[in-house]
């Protein structure tokens, strides 16, 4: 059940400038969280950021009680998180939101996991669940350049399918957009489902590919959230069949056909 957890910062794994994993001790959250869910994280005693921030849970271990967040430093909140000393106390509200749908996939199924940059954040936990379900996942990881993907070693031991890399400048993997790389592969591979997370331009391009190839997909959407549990109504996304979806409670995992892309 969701709760306001008191967590303790254990350690920070640094991958490259501004990319790191923050590992916290939060046993109740580690037991409860499912892949794709998020938590609202508070670095205490700050007026900026004043509100908590939504972070996808990157990984969780019920055995050790550890919860991991894969983070890119972009502002005051992420910078504060990067600088946290071991032992620091934090508050974590979660788990929140819905989860990636995995339960209906048959053993032996093959899925695609498409990530743009730090959009890879929710996928270690997804891979843990895919492995347990006997489902293999090909990882498509894209960024502007090699520096955007310095965290990729986090995925080396956990990807149970092929790994395809793409960068805009060709500094790592193929030169070009990860969505095009995915499209080329997906035309030849029967993916039972596509799980994706990344920046809005990637989502837009990917939604077109998904529609063109008639694939089933789940996008981990991002919207600025005030509360994370359906109250402030700040994180709405234009919906295909009604005015708005509330991202934090009806999502964040949404099939692309539910989103009104033309109103975004």
């Amino acid at each position, binding site marked *: *059940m*969701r*709760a*306001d957890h008191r967590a303790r910062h254990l350690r920070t794994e640094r991958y490259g400038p501004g990319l790191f994993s923050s590992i916290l001790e939060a046993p109740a959250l580690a037991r409860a969280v499912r892949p794709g869910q998020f938590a609202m994280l*508070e670095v205490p005693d700050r*007026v*900026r*950021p*004043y*509100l*908590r921030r939504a972070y996808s849970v990157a990984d969780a271990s019920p055995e050790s009680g550890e919860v991991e967040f894969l983070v890119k430093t972009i502002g005051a909140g992420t910078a504060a998180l990067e600088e946290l000393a071991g032992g620091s106390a934090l*508050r974590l*509200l979660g788990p929140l939101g819905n989860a990636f749908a995995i339960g209906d996939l048959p053993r032996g199924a093959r899925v695609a996991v498409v990530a743009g940059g730090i959009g890879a954040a929710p996928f270690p936990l997804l891979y843990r669940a895919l492995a347990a379900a006997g489902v293999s996942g090909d990882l498509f990881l894209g960024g502007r350049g090699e520096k955007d993907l310095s965290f990729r070693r986090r995925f080396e031991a956990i990807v149970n399918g092929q790994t395809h890399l793409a960068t805009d400048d060709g500094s790592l993997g193929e030169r070009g957009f990860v969505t095009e790389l995915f499209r080329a592969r997906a035309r030849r591979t029967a993916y039972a489902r596509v799980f994706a997370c990344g920046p809005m331009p990637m989502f837009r391009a990917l939604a077109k590919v998904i529609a063109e190839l008639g694939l089933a997909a789940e996008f981990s959407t991002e*919207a*600025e959230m*005030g*509360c994370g*549990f*359906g*109250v*402030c*109504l*700040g*994180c*709405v*996304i*234009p919906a295909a069949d009604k*005015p*708005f979806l509330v991202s934090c409670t009806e999502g964040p995992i949404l099939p692309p056909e539910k989103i009104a892309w033309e*109103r975004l």
Partner: protein
Amino acid sequence: MSERLAVGLGPLVLRNPILTASGTFGYGLEFADFVGLAKIGGLCTKGLSLKPHAGNAPPRICETPAGMLNAIGLQNVGVEAFRKEKLPKLRAAGATVIANVWGDAEDDYVAVVEALEDAEGLAAIELNISCPNVSRGGMLFGNSPELTAGLVARVRAATGRPLIVKLSPNAPDLVACAKAARDAGADILSLINTLVGMAIDPETARPRISFGTGGLSGPAIKPIAVRMVYQVARALPGMPLMGIGGIAGLGDALEFLAAGATAVQVGTANFKEPGIAGRLVAELDAYCAAKSVAAAALVGRAQAGSAAAREAGAEG
């Protein structure tokens, strides 16, 4: 909890003076995991309109130092869905429910209040005449003493329930609007709603909120809210007030009580700490027990004889 926390605001008696503010507490049920709904003084619902309302296009919120801007645009399920789907559950939970209502025009306000009049389990009506994020209604009423008086008189005639009028800090003359609301039949005044603000992305030079402007809330506005409560309490002695604006700890609540509020509403802090209202009730109880004082005795302590009181231009 104990009797020492009970407060009376005219016809409205509350088990304690800690409430939650409209627009920051959903319909209350969303908080059941975090707050004992029967433990807090009361909750103000999301602003209810006659028909369901979709609200503004995103982006709707952005964070600012010690607070946030919002222009949600009063998205709500509408009064019928509230009566059918929310209110029975709130009653079962033992919550003291205050229905916050709004409309585009006088007739809309009256229609919402009439639609709630025979509903069971409502403690009071709070009239939102101060929302800055809709193109019609809302703040347009609250910024004018004449429009406030006309609207409050019509709503007063439509309800036998305790009537709270939520004032706008954006009004050119707050005290004049407060008097207009009182004289037209309001039992209680709540203040303040959000202050109109703006944030612009320095790179794109575009407003961070699609509506352009938004309502500023959070600890950033607390000193303004405390001053306004103090000012209205001074000008309208005996008028029960609920203080709102940036309350995030017990000290903030005590500050509003000292300024002259008989109760307070916690707002933006509910987003950051969903259990805060319950925590403040417990902390206030411990405070009153330690001081051997009733909560009601904490009201207006800053008013009597202070230099600030004299300079605030006492009248009424």
